[in-house]
Structure formats: C-alpha cells, structure tokens
C-alpha cells in the first residue's frame, strides 16, 4: 500500500518532535531543509532512522537519500519506490 503525503507528514512531525505544526502546514513541494521547514543535519539523520523503523528502508549513504529529502512529496515517492513488498 502506498504511503499518503498526509501520513508521511504526520510521521515527520512525530519523529522530529516538531511543535506548533500540523501536516497541512507542510507544503507538498516545499524544501524540508534550510528554508521551508528549516530542518538541519541532525534532522536528516533522524529521518534516516525513521525510514528504517517505519518503512524498512535502509539508507547507507546520505548522498543516496539527498534527493529524497528535497520535499515531502519527493520523500513519499522515494518510500513508495523503495518500500519492501509486504
């Protein structure tokens, strides 16, 4: 089953312990890092752990994950393409 953007945004908020933010406040194509959501390098590592914990996706090289972390939509596409079959 494909992950929805709303579900993914909720997971991002939960795993990064973001306060005062709801899934609808994260634009689908807005940058997650720097401007946009303003995440940093520690958040990137936390997202890598989140992907393995929740979706069984292991990112061994951060360069491999870089394009996926561009936006919520890019991350959802990455998960849906890489997620192990149930």
């Amino acid at each position, binding site marked *: 089953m494909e992950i929805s953007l709303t579900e993914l945004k909720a997971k991002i908020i939960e795993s990064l*312990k973001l306060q005062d933010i709801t899934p609808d406040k994260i634009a689908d194509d807005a940058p997650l890092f720097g401007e946009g959501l303003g995440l940093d390098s520690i958040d990137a590592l936390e997202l890598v752990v989140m992907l393995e914990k929740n979706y069984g996706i292991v990112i061994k090289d951060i360069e491999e994950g870089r394009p996926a972390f561009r936006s919520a939509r890019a991350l959802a596409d990455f998960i849906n393409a890489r997620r192990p079959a149930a």
Partner: protein
Amino acid sequence: MNDIVVLAVSGVTRSDLASAQLGGRFGRLDLISQLALLAVEPLAPHFDSLPRERIGICIAVRAGSLSTDVEYWKDRDATGGPSPMLFTYTLPSSAIGEIAIRHRLTGPNLCFVGSDDIVLSEAADWLRRADVDGCVCVSCDVVTPPAAEVIQETPATTACALFLARGSNGLHALREIDRDMKLLCDKIRSQNPACPK
C-alpha cells in the same frame, strides 16, 4: 560579594513544560535543556541592556546527562538504532548551547556536573574580574525514574536560574554564604512576589 547583585530569578518543574511556548524546535530538546531554557526565559529581558558577548553562562547539572543517557541506551537495539537527536543531548553541557543559541549569548560558559554550590561563586569571580558584565546561572536537577533506579536516588525534575550582574540595585546582594541556588531562588521569590514563577 556586596558588589554583585541578583537581577532576576526563576524556577520551573516538569509540570511547567506543558504550557511552554518556546517555538517549534523546543520539543526536540532533552528534558534538561527544556527545563534550563524554560527557567532562563523570564531572565531574558535583562540581557538586552548588555552586549551579548559580555554575558556568561554557568550551569550545574546534578546528575549530568544520566537521564538522557539511560533513555538513549534503552533504544540501543531498536530497529535503525537509537535517536541521533537524543545522542546530541548525551553531553551534560548541551543545555548551555541551547541557552546560548536561543538568546545569542556568546560570552564564556562553564558546566559543573554535580552540586551547584560553586556556580554562584564562579559567576561572581567572572563578574569581579570583569570577564563578563552579566552571568546566567542555572541549576538543573533532573533524575528521571529510570535514571533514579540506576543511581538509587529520588527522581527529580526541576531547574532554577538567576541572572547576576555588578551593581547595587537588584533583588538581592550576593553574599559568600549564598551557595545553594535553589534555596536562594526560593528565598528571593518569596520576598519578591512579582518575580516570575
């Protein structure tokens, strides 16, 4: 110590965290940093009258980062490993960084692991030597129940903070006998009902 005065005090417990409004990233901090930041917040208006690079931070964390260490260790076998975010707080002095970042304080800083009874005298020395013009003093007593089991102590989750400066006008003139920070905070707050919680 009659040339050093306490300009502001505050004290917080874990129950105060529920109503904390310190921005979207507050939730990522560990308990020690959250309590320390929350305790320092009411002191912040006094920082504006001094150059930020002339304000020091002196902190004592009674049990170091033990509570965070225990939480981190608990997740060591979890899928994907323990939280990288939590790892950054397995350093007893991490609260200093959070205070410095939030209030843009770039003066000297010092962290004691254990008793807070040297914090005020150390800060007073900085002020007397003119190393700083103001000093944020924080005492954190954080021992979560899992950590309390490890060290056979009573759980605690409190923090108190004072802002010291040179001068003669303040809430309290610092004396040699003022060593117990929590006692001093409680005393000043009881004598000054207008002090923040």
